[in-house]
């Protein structure tokens, strides 16, 4: 029971008043920057590093953990209330969450996100404490061919989940895939589709595209609709808290999201986006009222939010056990460790156990604190939607622009924000779903790079793709996702339940 002894020791460290104060400052800061699109926890921690240099290591690492979790929480608040996903991992949350907010159910949406994040974060943190060494062994056994199979699974499930019309969904997806080709090709070092503009060499920033399509595109639609606007945003209808049915519909998605998020987050090339896509697709499949999907289904918020937070804890597995930073924030946390002369890696658990367990314990504290701070504030947050529409959308526009420019001060970035905003408007106007564009931009480059790595390692032999048992299992799941509904129809003679259109 070494783990529990170590963990309770860590909790003692984290519960010291001064460390609680650090955690509090961290979650507040994190929530604030999470709301602003583009400016994420990575930048905030980077700005704080030189200031915290003289502080006690435990205190500042606890604050960083608070910023990390707080940032994610703030990101979902902006997604739900303003349809402005500030982080790529909260894009899916905007789909159902914003629909709920418009229908006066912003309170329950925020609550299920907060409680789901808490549940998933807690379970995943326990997972981190108990099974980190085992998980990491499995995670590094994933080769490029296995990652490619995982991307195939993501493509097949996700393309089935978005939009009622397959053609429209695929059109959007391919726009995203084409945008994903822009920039320097990692394997060959050659520029593609950059038209001699140096700012395009690094490709299209996911948050810029997401903010433009969601926030700017929507603002343009509202303006274009003018007085014809039929939709009325209801700030609050009914209770701001979750009712019995909300709870009943949320707890399973929370758990399923956790199960998807933690292991994928722990994979060195997994990330937090893919589990949110998979969770959304899965919840849509399993939902008893599939026609609610696209109109504000609470499952579509609960699952992806849980997956997102579980993945965040998962990212810490390779960071703490191997010293592998697999996300921007993890890279900064690594710099934070190094600032105190600590090297995360296989030796950290042995050489600095109090610090590691203090950090893990502080994740519990940060999660709990976020819940306590934010649940009472839900009522206040949803009042945001009561702001008159011209002001609200004016504010969103300022917010989106500031966030994008803050993260990358470049005129080309601003131009992209506007052009993609126009694209978002056109897509909306002609009823094409917008989420697959972002999905294509995220998954396309990942899938391409993994495929090419696999083929380069095998010196061009394509059979390598079908030799690993992990890859074969993932292909089997993809086949099930594609042909499952058809089989269902052939066996029962009934059409499988299909969800409604989203956005």
């Amino acid at each position, binding site marked *: 029971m070494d783990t529990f002894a170590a963990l309770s020791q860590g909790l003692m460290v984290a519960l010291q008043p001064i460390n609680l104060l650090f955690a509090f400052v961290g979650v507040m800061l994190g929530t604030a920057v999470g709301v602003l699109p583009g400016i994420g926890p990575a930048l905030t*921690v980077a700005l704080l590093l030189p200031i915290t240099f003289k502080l006690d290591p435990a205190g500042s690492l606890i604050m960083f953990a608070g910023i990390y979790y707080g940032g994610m929480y703030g990101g979902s608040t902006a997604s739900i209330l303003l349809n402005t996903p500030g982080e790529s991992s909260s894009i899916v949350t905007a789909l159902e969450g914003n629909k709920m907010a418009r229908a006066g159910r912003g309170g329950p949406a925020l609550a299920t996100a907060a409680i789901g994040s808490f549940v998933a974060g807690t379970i995943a943190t326990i997972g981190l404490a108990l099974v980190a060494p085992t998980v990491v062994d499995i995670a590094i056994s*994933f080769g490029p061919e296995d990652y490619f199979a995982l991307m195939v699974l993501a493509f097949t499930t996700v393309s089935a989940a978005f939009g009622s019309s397959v053609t429209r969904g695929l059109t959007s997806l391919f726009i995203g895939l084409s945008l994903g080709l822009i920039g320097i090709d990692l394997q060959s070092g050659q520029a593609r589709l950059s038209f001699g503009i140096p700012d395009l060499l690094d490709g299209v920033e996911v948050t810029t595209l997401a903010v433009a399509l969601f926030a700017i595109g929507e603002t343009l639609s509202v303006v274009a609709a003018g007085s014809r606007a039929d939709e009325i945003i209801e700030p609050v209808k009914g209770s701001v808290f979750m009712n019995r049915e909300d709870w009943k519909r949320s707890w399973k998605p929370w758990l399923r999201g956790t199960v998807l998020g933690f292991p994928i987050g722990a994979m060195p*090339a997994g990330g937090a986006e893919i589990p949110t896509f998979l969770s959304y697709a899965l919840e849509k499949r399993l939902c008893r009222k599939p026609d609610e999907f696209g109109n504000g289904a609470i499952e579509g918020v609960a699952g992806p939010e849980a997956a997102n937070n579980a993945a965040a804890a998962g990212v810490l597995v390779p960071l703490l056990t191997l010293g592998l930073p697999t996300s921007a924030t993890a890279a900064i946390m690594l710099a934070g460790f190094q600032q105190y002369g600590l090297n995360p890696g296989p030796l950290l658990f042995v050489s600095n156990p109090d610090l590691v367990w203090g950090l893990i314990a502080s994740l519990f504290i940060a999660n709990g604190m976020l819940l306590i701070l934010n649940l009472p504030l839900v009522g206040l947050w949803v009042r945001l939607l009561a702001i008159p529409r011209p002001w609200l959308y004016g504010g969103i526009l300022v917010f989106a622009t500031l966030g994008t420019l803050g993260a990358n001060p470049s005129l080309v970035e601003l131009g992209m924000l506007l052009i993609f905003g126009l694209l978002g408007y056109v897509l909306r106007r002609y009823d094409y779903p917008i989420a697959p564009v972002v999905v294509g931009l995220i998954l396309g480059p990942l899938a391409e790079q993994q495929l090419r790595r696999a083929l380069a390692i095998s010196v061009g032999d394509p059979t390598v793709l079908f030799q690993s048992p992990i890859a074969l299992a993932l292909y089997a799941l993809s086949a099930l996702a594609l042909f499952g509904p058809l089989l269902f129809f052939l066996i029962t003679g009934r059409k499988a339940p299909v969800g409604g259109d989203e956005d």
Partner: protein
Amino acid sequence: MNHMLRGALLAAAFTAASLGTASAQVGDLKIIAPAAPGGGWDQTARAMQQVLQSEKLAANAQVMNVPGAGGTIGLAQFVNGSKGDPNVLLVGGYVMVGAIITNKSPVNLSMVTPIARLTGEYEAIAVPANSPLKSMADLVAALKADPQKVSWAGGSAGGTDHITAGLIAKAIGVDPTKVNYIAFSGGGESLASILGGKVTVGISSLSEFDAQAKAGKLRLLGVSSAERLPEAKDVPTFKESGVDVEIQNWRSVSAAPGITEEQKKQLTETIGKMVQSKAWKDLLAQKGWVDTYLSGPAFAEQLAKDVTATQSVLKDIGLAN
């Protein structure tokens, strides 16, 4: 560079500083890190900010991140926007040399005023502990037998890791275009593929492999320094193993184009004092960075040499023409 020479240079810098009549402190400094927060350049800029302020060498120092395209976006902005401004500094490094060539950047390092090289890291080659490759000689033999069968995991194509792999192939008489180089976007991802045995060898800066090597999960075959490194005493250099390759991934600081000689001198002195301070040395030790300070004409000469060598190797591996 050997210690005596470095000592002499430092002494020279010190004498120059004590003879200088300019005030000890410069005003508000803006340090541009041409990369996203968290990377080496960003950390270097923030380390400078910290020491310049704590040592009262600058009244106030600010770091600004201008990420993109291997630093060339930040470089372009610096060249075009800060002409003649003595209060702006740009952090950069060897990676920029390659990026300028492969990206066909319209601006290059000859358009700024180089001040000093600050720190450096050396490249190392690692294999998983259970790999049949036991030494550099085994790797050389494998490469000579069939270069395509040896897959290398490293950073992005055209970066320091790729250039080093190309230089090694060239040094042992293997066609550099045949090097089977697999680019990974982050250190974490490539390390995972090496540990998982997905690739034959990994190539990266020594600090990325250090912890795993100490834990016995990776074996280091060689390092790219001129002499053995204190943090990896039992790892031979490439040269010791008969592979004539020496490369340092350095980081430097430059001032804006078009500043006066007087301004250049003052900035060089300020940076010289920063490098000598205990705070800077402590910080380097903490981060595991090697002090490879070099300033004035010696740095300019080294820079010119690196640019020529890089141009030719990038041509050899087919990334530049």
